[in-house]
């Protein structure tokens, strides 16, 4: 009952968010540039050519009409034509999304166990040298731009040690293992970013749970340390961490512009970069909105996961 209410409310809020997002993307793609045709052809182009292009693209129509035309087609999967490739946008997005998913999966599998273990371990040794090292290293890893860590990793593992391929694009027809092999180096900058973030959450949650009264109750019951830790501390400590992880799925799929560009990988981020460089607004809008949808969905999942795992939400207080 309670959970159902939470579900409905979240769904509704997500829909509103998505709608606002579409406005935002529309504003970015068709409102801010003013004259789209001018923006594509550049300042030196002939006014007639610009007007022609505007008409051809439909950008000389009223804004509301344009918005409605765009969004109503978008929801049916028709993302209009790419200026750059002179072809429908949707297939590009689909392929790119698939590629991004692969990269995200590799990064995810690497980072989750590592960072939770690191965070909990640091919390259990709070204040000691290794806790400090994990904390400072984690913080540094999280705040470094991916292209910086990426470059350094390429130099170390790709050039000097020559262990891993520099580019992410595997030879045509490679099996899954080869694909993963090619994806390890590109996923490492992502792992670094997420490691610090998740480990910090796990550490803070664990410290809070360790200091909680219910942990004291458990210890004073005379329970073995292992039971106290697993049943009482971690169960409560990792709940917020799980939501953070779920939220990060969005980042992992959509936030890869830099990494995909750096490793010449045709994921959704790489596609957005290409579209941005080529001022290919339909492609750019579709890519950005897709990323936004994935983000919103992963936040929604995180919220629902939290509600489902948290008995205080699952079962409201009895009256």
């Amino acid at each position, binding site marked *: 009952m309670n959970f159902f209410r939470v579900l409905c409310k979240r769904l509704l809020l997500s829909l509103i968010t998505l709608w606002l997002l579409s406005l935002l993307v529309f504003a970015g793609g068709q409102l801010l540039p003013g004259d789209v045709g001018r923006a594509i052809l550049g300042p030196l182009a002939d006014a007639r050519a610009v007007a022609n292009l505007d008409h051809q693209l439909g950008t000389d129509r009223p804004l509301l009409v344009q918005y409605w035309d765009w969004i109503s087609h978008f929801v049916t999967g028709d993302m209009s034509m790419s200026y750059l490739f002179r072809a429908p946008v949707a297939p590009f997005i689909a392929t790119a999304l698939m590629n991004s998913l692969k990269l995200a999966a590799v990064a995810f599998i690497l980072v989750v166990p590592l960072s939770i273990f690191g965070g909990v371990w640091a919390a259990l040794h709070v*204040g000691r040298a290794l806790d400090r090292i994990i904390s400072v290293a984690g913080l540094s890893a999280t705040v470094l731009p991916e292209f910086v860590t990426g470059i350094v990793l390429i130099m170390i593992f790709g050039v000097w040690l020559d262990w891993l391929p520099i580019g992410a694009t595997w030879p045509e027809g490679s099996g899954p293992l080869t694909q993963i092999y090619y994806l390890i180096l590109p996923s490492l900058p992502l792992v670094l970013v997420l490691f610090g973030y998740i480990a910090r959450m796990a550490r803070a949650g664990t410290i809070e749970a360790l200091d*909680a*009264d*219910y942990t*004291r*109750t*458990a*210890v*004073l*019951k*005379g*329970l*073995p340390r292992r*039971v106290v830790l697993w*049943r*009482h501390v971690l*169960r*409560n400590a990792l*709940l917020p961490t799980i939501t953070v992880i779920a939220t990060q799925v969005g980042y992992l799929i959509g936030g890869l512009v830099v990494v995909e560009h750096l490793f010449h990988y045709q994921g959704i981020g790489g596609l957005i970069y290409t579209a941005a460089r080529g001022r290919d607004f339909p492609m750019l809008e579709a890519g950005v909105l897709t990323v936004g949808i994935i983000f919103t969905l992963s936040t929604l999942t995180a919220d629902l996961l939290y509600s489902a795992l*948290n*008995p*205080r939400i699952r*079962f409201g*207080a*009895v*009256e």
Partner: protein
Amino acid sequence: MSAAPTAPAADALTVSDLELAYRVRGHDRQVLRKLSFRIGRGESYGLVGESGCGKSTVALAAVRYLPRNGRIRGGQVLVDGRDLFKLGDSDLRQLRATTVSMVYQDPGRALNPSLRIGRQMGEIFALRGIGKAEAHDRAEAMLQRVRIADPRPVLHRYPHQLSGGMQQRVAIAMALSIEPKLLILDEPTTGLDATVEAEVLDLIARLRGEISTSVLFISHNLAVIARMCDRVGVLYAGTLVEEGATRDLFNDPRHPYTVGLLRCLPRRGRRKDHGRLDTIPGFLPAPGSVMQGCIFAERCALADDLCRRVEPDLVDLGGRHSRCHYHDKAPGLPRATPSDMAAPLAIAREQAPVLTVANLAKTFGSGLHRVRALSGVNLELWSGETLGLVGESGSGKSTLARVLLGLTAPDSDSRVELDGKALPGSTDDRNPEQVKALQIVFQNPDSALNRSHSVKGLIGRSLAKLAKVARGDRMARLVALTRAVRLADRYLSVRPRQLSGGLKQRVAIARAFAGDPRIIVCDEPTSALDVSVQAAILNLLADLQAERRVSYIFISHDLGTVRYLSDRIAVLYLGRLMEIGPAESVFNGPHHPYTEALLSAVPAIDGQSRERIRLEGEIPSAINPPSGCVFHTRCPRKLGEICELHEPPLLASEPGHEIRCHIPADVLAGLQHIAVDEKRFPSRLPK
């Protein structure tokens, strides 16, 4: 004294010469000093003291669960004859699993929020090798033992699905599951409503009769300790200053601190026209400060050179102890505050009241989630009088206060009149005179005083905005006002967090008086304060009222303080006025059954039992209030169907005293007459 290194094996707990410190920013702060006491088999020992005296640290030391920065610097703690701080990890675990258990404040946080009650109780039995099915049965039996009528569904609940009182019962059941030799109760009822507190205390008292466990009971509440314990130790700044049998200690205290504490309490029906309460001057020494001589000397009227030089021992006075050089003179401790008080105001009830409240209602939310926080409240308040407002939490006391002040707008058909003129619902719509007329002293000065502003700024702004004092005159008025609340001038430049709780509350009071208000709402103004500070604040409020003829609406859950300050009392239940009348009539009865229950929930410091009526369960939700008389679901004197169907009117039992009950006042008097005689609430003149 009991500090012998080899304690008799019979003792449940022996603490000897315990020295404990917390390490804060590289410095050790001494929390417990040379602390020694013992608890015999089956004995109930109370440890009482004001906040910051180290009583909770004692509890944590007794189970060896100190904060990370806590360290033992000397002495030892024996639990059931075993030296706690010499035990290995597994022995310590064994001891906790079999011998000692603990219940503490805030049961909502003591239980794991993500495990069902059955699981949390079951793991105690699992630890002793008991199988799942039997563990379940045993858990059920334990819940029955703590008087949970229907334990089976409770086992399947999560903690947040239980009320505070239920949670504490579960915590007690868990603690008793191991049949401990020593049970530590650290403020187990603090934060619970008085009626629930009474129930939990009853339960603990009854269980003590059933299980021969020793108890260490820790509380700031002298009356609770008096009721629950055989022997009492008084803790001051981490030192035991007095110890003895409960009755001896409370009736004939031998340490100036104990004497002072007891005098601070408004008890035995004491009222403001009986004179001021006594106070304890000065402040608790800062934690970690190095002291020479007696730790209490700075605040003691008996202190002389000897006290300041030589630290007194805990002197044996034949079965009791006092850490005072002049323990024989302690009972005659000179008063710190003179008793004389300006003549109490005569209240002219023939004149029109200052404030008239008619049909006041406040509904929160809308649709299905409508909460009637207040309904049909009628009140009058005359100039210079104090109207006490009592009721459990959820009764609507604070909502009434906020509505009167205009911080929350009442429902549209409510009428509030100031001096016969309608008062707009929101303070934003009131004219400056009206805004000025109603002010408040909040419960928690930390929240009520802006921490970024200085004392001068806090009071000065009120003088400027409310009293319209011109800039040039402001300083003089400011100083006059701070002196009126007995606040030294040097505090003007400091910020609130540098002041103690009592000083902060004085600043808040000065601010409330800045605009010469007609009415001040005092919303639990002393409940966040220690008793010694509370007495000084109550005195101040009474003095200011006599000087300035202001009216108070005084909200408190502590009936002793309400009685001390109030001329009339209104009793609220679920947002409805159940009883209103002169303070003495309301206290002496006949009174509403709810008032009766509230009164019998208060433990008396004399430790004498009296006829009690107890309420079942907790205040119902205001979303879905009971039909008829809202109190019928819990009323011990319920008549029958009439109570379920018809809401009784407020009927006068005597002039000015109205009761909302179907039972006529004379019948109530008859029902309560027996109780009234045994109840120790005759108004007694001060000694």
